[in-house]
């Protein structure tokens, strides 16, 4: 049987994690194709509904990744993201969405190597969790 290939939606901020992904690319570092990057200007603009939508549309994992504390281009967007992730981690697991499917990380613009490493690890962990809604036909 083919190994399960999870689909992971990653909301990455323009200034840090997206730049790190860019750096990983220009440095010819590989990372799994399971990650679908969505570039946002700041993790502070990731409304909880983006995450909910991703899961209901069948994402097996969602990553939000932005600047390290103190580095936010908009001063404090990443702190707001942290509260929203905390909120979602309180809501989603009650309805069977495993807490480990939603992740928040800080990856700075110069962390190209770390970016590719974290993406690899994230895919492995999500693969172990299995598909999110294997036989959900009707939804959303």
């Amino acid at each position: 049987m083919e190994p399960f290939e999870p689909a992971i939606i990653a909301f990455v901020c323009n200034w840090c994690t997206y730049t790190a992904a860019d750096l990983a690319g220009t440095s010819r570092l590989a990372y799994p194709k399971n990650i679908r990057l969505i570039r946002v200007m700041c993790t502070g603009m990731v409304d909880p509904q983006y995450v909910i939508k991703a899961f209901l549309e069948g994402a097996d994992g969602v990553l939000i990744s932005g600047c390290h504390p103190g580095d936010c281009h908009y001063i404090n967007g990443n702190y707001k993201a942290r509260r929203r992730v905390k909120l979602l981690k309180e809501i989603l697991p009650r309805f069977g969405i495993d807490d480990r499917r939603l992740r928040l990380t800080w990856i700075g613009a110069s962390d190209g190597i770390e970016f590719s490493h974290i993406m690899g690890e994230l895919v492995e962990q999500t693969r172990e969790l299995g598909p999110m809604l294997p036989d959900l036909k009707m939804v959303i």
Partner: protein
Amino acid sequence: MTQAVSIPIQDHDLLTGMRSFLTAIMEKSGIDAILVPARLSVKNRIMPMLISDPACLTEADPLSPAFPVNAAQQLTRLTRQPAGGRLAAVLRPCEVRAFNELVKLNQGRREDVLIISLDCPGALSNSDFRTFADGYDSLDAASRAFAATAFSSAPAGDLPEVTSACRACDHPVCDGGDIGIERFGDDQATDPVARAHTESGQAALTGLDFPPPQAPAEGRKAAIQSILAVRRRYRDGMFAEVAEATNTIPALSTYLADCVNCYNCRGACPVCYCTTCVFSTDTFRHEPFQYVQWARRKGEIKMPTDTLFFHLTRMAHMSCACVGCGQCTNACPNDIPLSDLFTYVARHTQGAFDYRAGLDINARPPMNGFEEEEYPEIVGL
């Protein structure tokens, strides 16, 4: 400054006593208009009414078990800008809590309004209230019948049961407003006490010619403790049932299966305050090919779509402010027990941030701030 007065009651007629109290407040404390549940002139129904003529207070009915809307929403309409006069409002404790949340979200102001709150025995759903009220000759008779036993420890007889949200409410006490009218422990031998909880409440009571409270109500504390114990037991059982019934996404879909996306729950929710909800915008008027693509991918999709998405998003957006008033259930045309679900989620989201919606006007809403160093467990793989 007067801390508390007693409201004289003649012949056990609490309703008339309450009306005289409100009339005195209006006439002697410089209130230009009062928002109070009152009888509609056209039909035996109760709605929040904005009364500026004290003579109309004969229709006021703060004791009725009717709870057609959460009046906090209406009060924001009156207080979001100065109204050009001093206002008062008679609110249930959950309405005070909802108003406090709205004030924190800059939707209204507490400064311009004197809030009078009553200990709350719970309310009926709209449909139960209609049946109940129609069984009496007048609304006054219905309210008196309800008020007579609402706080007594005797069995309620043939009175209908209050809503699930009310049975699970653990803050029915009138301490959130400027003036609280105490009824827990009501033995009908002593007159009810109106107690000031803020300076403006004290100022309002000072102008009245009401006698000081009689003997301190001894039974009050015990009565509150015992009703809270009953309610917490009900609530814990209810939460356990909801948790069991919604523990997977398919189970949650089943719980919400009767939803027709009318969004009445959102409209009735006092703390869902956005003037335009994203679910009513063109964002959710998907392209036709999108629907077809979903149907192809899943074999079939329910129309209207986005039901689960709507409810989960609403939980994320407002559960930290949910005061558990139960109006979402009341507004649902298809009898989905929404408030059971939303109070269950709210309990946990508010708990995670050590927040209780509406209780402390100075506590900052969780999604309205942050600390530089907090929740390290959230970050990282």
